[in-house]
């Protein structure tokens, strides 16, 4: 049975999801697992969509006190849109936007320099919204490439979440992210619609930069299904949920 925690350290993982099956549970679960299981964990969250309140609330469900880690410096939370601003909506372009992403990369670099030892975790919770609210595709591509570069140098794990709105037509950003990632974790809703027993299914594909000695992949036909509960996801093999058997 596949679990997200089975993935190796130091990888670039692209997580894609759809509106009917958001993949935020994977990010929260990965963070909670890291903070609980490591002796001296290091994690940095680049948050575009989710506020710190939700991160705190969901971590507390996994018995993790996020505030303690924030105070101790083992976790850093960066609100991306307070650091960078999209070209002004409705005209009046902001010429400093291009250098603003540099600020974020520098901040990640500084954190990774401080966090020596182990494999730090960097989470970018939503890269797609940056494109939707006005950042150019070129800037976002450069940003993701720069993030990948600093993470590879520090042997850090990078999780990037991308929203898919046209499942049958991959967009340019998705193509680019697939090129720079080692693995692609795909979260999809059931094609039959919402269900109380099955929230969605996940499959794992190799990215273009996947190492030759890969871990066991999961194709769509044998995708692992999950059900979201209050405390976290419950994974099970396809067709073995309580409502089926």
């Amino acid at each position: 049975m596949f679990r997200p925690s089975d993935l190796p350290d130091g990888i670039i993982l692209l997580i894609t999801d759809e509106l009917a099956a958001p993949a935020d549970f994977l990010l929260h679960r990965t963070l909670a697992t890291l903070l609980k299981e490591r002796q001296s964990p290091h994690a940095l969250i680049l948050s575009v969509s989710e506020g710190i309140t939700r991160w705190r609330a969901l971590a507390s469900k996994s018995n993790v006190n996020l505030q303690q880690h924030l105070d101790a410096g083992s976790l850093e939370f960066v609100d991306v849109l307070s650091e960078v601003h999209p070209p002004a909506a409705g005209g009046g372009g902001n010429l400093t936007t291009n250098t603003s992403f540099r600020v974020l990369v520098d901040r990640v670099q500084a954190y990774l320099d401080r966090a020596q030892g182990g494999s730090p975790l960097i989470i970018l919770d939503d890269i797609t919204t940056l494109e939707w609210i006005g950042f150019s595709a070129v800037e976002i591509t450069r940003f993701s490439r720069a993030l990948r570069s600093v993470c590879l140098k520090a042997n850090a794990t990078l999780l990037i979440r991308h929203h898919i709105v046209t499942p049958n037509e991959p967009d340019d950003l998705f193509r680019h992210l697939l090129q720079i990632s080692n693995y692609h974790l795909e979260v999809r809703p059931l094609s039959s619609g919402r269900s109380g027993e099955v929230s969605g299914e996940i499959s794992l594909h190799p990215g273009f930069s996947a190492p030759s000695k890969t871990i066991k992949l999961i194709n769509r036909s044998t995708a692992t299904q999950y059900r979201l509960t209050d405390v976290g996801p419950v994974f099970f093999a396809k067709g073995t949920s309580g409502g089926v058997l």
Partner: protein
Amino acid sequence: MSSFKRKPKSTTGDASSSNKPTSEAATPLTVYPGTRISPASTLSLVTSTGISSLDDILGGGLPLSCSLVIAAPDMHSSYGELVQKNFVAQGLASGQRVCVVGADASAWVREVMWMPDARGVPVRTSGGAERRQGDSDEEEKESEKAHGGKVTIAWRYEKMRQFQTTTSQEGETFCAPFELGSRVPEEVIAEAVGERRLTFVEVGRRVEDVLRSIAQELAMENALPVRICVPWLGTPAWGDLTPQDVLYFLHALRSLLRSHTHGCASVGLAPQMSAAGWGGAGWMDKVGWAADGALMVAAFSANPALSSMFPGHHGLLQTQRLPAPHTLLAPSDRFSTLRGLGGSGENNLAFRCTRKRLVFETLHLDVEGGTAERRTTAAAGTGQGPGTGPGRPKKKRVGFSDDLY
């Protein structure tokens, strides 16, 4: 001495007072007037949208710090606007602060519905009894008949609950019983404006300037919850908005609400922007990602086939996304009776607008499988329908219309 103690009665009928003792003991959460603690999380406060069935679909109400987008793609009806009016009316009735963002917002607020027994001041508790006395709506008559009239049924079905397609008005303290026939009294508006509980933000400027004004409203004070209502986002008064502007506005509004946890927002999308392809492929999904909750109120008026298929309803409700501010799973998935996700698939949802109110309910096919009339209509020129008599029409050649050309 008895070990049982009588619970002290609350002095007012306000929802906040009934919630306060338990909530304050359990958590340091401040329970504002017109709000209550979410059934899903003790960290969340929910407030009513003014429509109890919509509250049920949202999992108890709209959580504070969340935004909700109502898309109404039909150009010829205004059911989406009706939801916004209920939202504003509920805010005024429960004494919360309301900020309406739009062109000529003060005139729009005067069209908001109200409770039928209003006498110039917000009535929060006493509406129920009087309202029932004067009721003459067809569906309530029917339900009265069903409750009062003794119907003989098989004993094994006697304890079976009556089949319901919508939720009942649970407590009028949380969701006021508005009626579409009543208008909000001028005194209520004047009082709210005088106390700065009702404010307006003009549009027609840059989106950033509108957002700045909203931020000022949110930052003004936090003793009362603030409802931000945008009745029509994207109408000509807003200027020429691009899809990017709309998504930026929604995303920035959500960020504002995250930092001001005593606020919530309801945004109505203009009809042309509610169409699936307006902002490119996957437009409505993008809107859903940019807000905490997104619902689509799709009226039947654009499609006569649907209105004839479902004569009891006026449109369908599609849930794109539901707010979950402190939980992994949206509270609606666990607590919504109408969606019914407890152990099976999701119910289809529809709405109908009666003379008095807008009601969201589950959509079912009729007993006969979707068509109300099973019989075929009589052929033209016959009085009694098909039969064997002198009036029987001659047989016509039956063929495809294409054959004629």
